[in-house]
């Protein structure tokens, strides 16, 4: 996994909000990379810093956040760019799909305008050419009667159709990377599956890299090549999706797998992870997961385990690898 060939790579990313005693450390030294055509799943509970790490890397963190580290898109460090260049690079090379398509689309503009404005800005297309492209995009994401839908406003569409529009907007300039921040969480299960299929198919066609942020290991499992598990602003484990599923090294990952319902095992009891994620303003001295860890090794109370290789391409932040 080299950062020079990666479609998107994040190196030692830190995000803090506030200063002094009340500083919240949202993301603490996160690194990962996505190769072209590959999908990286970033998994964690709400507040784990999973969304923030991706938004911060692409310059979309809130103005109050301080971002340090490096984030390479096709070899260009986004965080080293001036505001104008960052804006152009992001619009051209990155597409975004967010959680709630109702609020993420502008309610006052037609679907057409919301797709064409980026095309006009970054590809220098005329209004007419951009419209033709918008029509193409709507057909590509599987919206029936696309010509009529161009004139529609978001409130006139269903949740699944809206999310398809979001995908069309994200893909408008043929980006090298698609960032999907919980794009199926607000949708019902059938629609979820359709959206997953569309992204998978388009990824194959266009060959773009995908970062898929989710709290749902199940969704990510069916989609990702590599998975990064985040907790308390840190990466706790990262591995290929099959390795992670078959041989999770970190107690937290094992907990996540245990908390997932599976068909055919309805009678099996779901194992919840007791407790709540740590407060980013009062992080523990030792391992960030110590409070909720079922093992609670003595050493972990005051020493932070390093993110170390437990097998080739498999990293975990734990001292307890042998106790698996």
């Amino acid at each position: 996994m080299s950062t020079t060939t990666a479609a998107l790579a994040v190196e030692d990313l830190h995000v803090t909000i506030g200063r002094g005693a009340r500083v919240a450390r949202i993301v603490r030294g996160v690194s990962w990379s996505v190769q072209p055509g590959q999908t990286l799943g970033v998994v964690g509970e709400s507040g784990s810093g999973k969304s923030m790490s991706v938004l911060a890397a692409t310059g979309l963190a809130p103005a109050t956040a301080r971002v340090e580290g490096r984030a390479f898109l096709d070899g260009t460090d986004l965080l080293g760019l001036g505001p104008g260049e960052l804006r152009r690079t992001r619009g051209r090379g990155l597409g975004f799909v967010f959680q709630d398509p109702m609020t993420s689309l502008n309610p006052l503009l037609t679907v057409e305008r919301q797709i064409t404005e980026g095309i006009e800005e970054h590809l220098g297309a005329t209004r007419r050419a951009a419209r033709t492209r918008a029509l193409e995009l709507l057909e590509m994401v599987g919206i029936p009667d696309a010509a009529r839908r161009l004139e529609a406003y978001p409130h006139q569409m269903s949740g699944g159709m809206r999310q398809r529009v979001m995908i069309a907007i994200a893909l408008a300039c043929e980006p090298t990377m698609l960032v999907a921040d919980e794009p199926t969480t607000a949708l019902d299960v059938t629609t979820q599956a359709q959206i997953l299929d569309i992204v998978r198919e388009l990824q194959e066609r266009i060959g773009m890299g995908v970062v898929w942020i989710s709290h749902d290991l199940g969704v990510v499992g069916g989609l990702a090549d590599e998975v990064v598990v985040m907790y308390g602003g840190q990466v706790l484990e990262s591995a290929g999706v099959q390795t992670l599923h078959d041989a999770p090294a970190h107690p937290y990952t094992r907990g996540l797998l245990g908390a997932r319902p599976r068909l055919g095992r309805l009678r099996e009891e779901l194992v919840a992870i007791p407790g709540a994620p740590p407060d980013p303003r009062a992080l523990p001295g030792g391992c960030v997961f110590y409070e909720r860890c079922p093992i609670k090794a003595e050493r972990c109370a005051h020493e932070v385990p390093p993110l170390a290789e437990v097998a080739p391409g498999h990293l975990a932040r734990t001292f307890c690898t042998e106790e698996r």
Partner: protein
Amino acid sequence: MLRFTLLRAGHAVVVLLGVTVVVFALVHLVPGDPVRVALGTRFTQESYDALRAASGLDQPLLTQYVQYLGSAVTGDLGVSFRTGQPVTTILLERLPATVSLAAAALVIALVIAFPLGVFAATRHGRASDTVVRVASQAGVSVPDFWLGIMFILLFSVTLGWLPPSGYVPLTEDPLEWARRVAMPALAVGLVSGAILTRFVRSAVLESLGSDHARTARAKGLRARVVLLRHVVRNALVPVVTVIGVQAATLLGGIIVVEVVFAWPGLGRLTYDAVAARDYPVLQGSVLLVAALFLLVSFLVDVLYGRIDPRISAR
């Protein structure tokens, strides 16, 4: 859109009818006998009875109301007890003064509120935001008539730049009108602008933090495009309501400032009519102000439908 507009217009008519009932009832519930006031020292029982009958005040209330409504529809709002002039004529005489003052004040308010509100919102939490917030709080807290008196002291008494009071119609001499309207419009417009600034600031602030503003930034649009097309435009929806309320208030509520500047508008007319118990004039001016209020709300509703496609669709 047409259906939406007609529906709103229908609502306005129903409300206006309600207003006539309330105005009519209120005026007749107020203690004091207008006929006695009108006659003053010329009071005799015969002249009292004669004027009472001539004004229709000896009829039952319901009859009086129906008569009032009937003539009101044809534009006849009765005659003033005090001057004997038709009320409609008096109102039409006063209307331009009030409308031109309100319009000037609203323009001043908008010119202040939009740049300052948007500016403060984009500088949220910084020193410049605090300055705007404190200044607008001060503006909200100051009574407009006090500002007016201070302006007279400064610009008329001390500097001698502007005439302290009086009105010249815009159609007669635009320059002189501007000189006369400057101080009252500024006094009212500053206060109104301070209120609007706060609304614009908070609406833009909310819109800046919205998901769709983030989408717009994610598309890599220019900062100016994000601000105008995606942030301010969406912030307009709540702001337009407040602008409407401000406009309506300006049309009907500049009473004290009109008195301070001897501005012959509806506010002053209402004030004088109350003092003299001139019922027909009072009824007429309240009705006109209510009608103006409804007209403004109607325009706001229509404007709403034009800004937000979700509203006209309902």
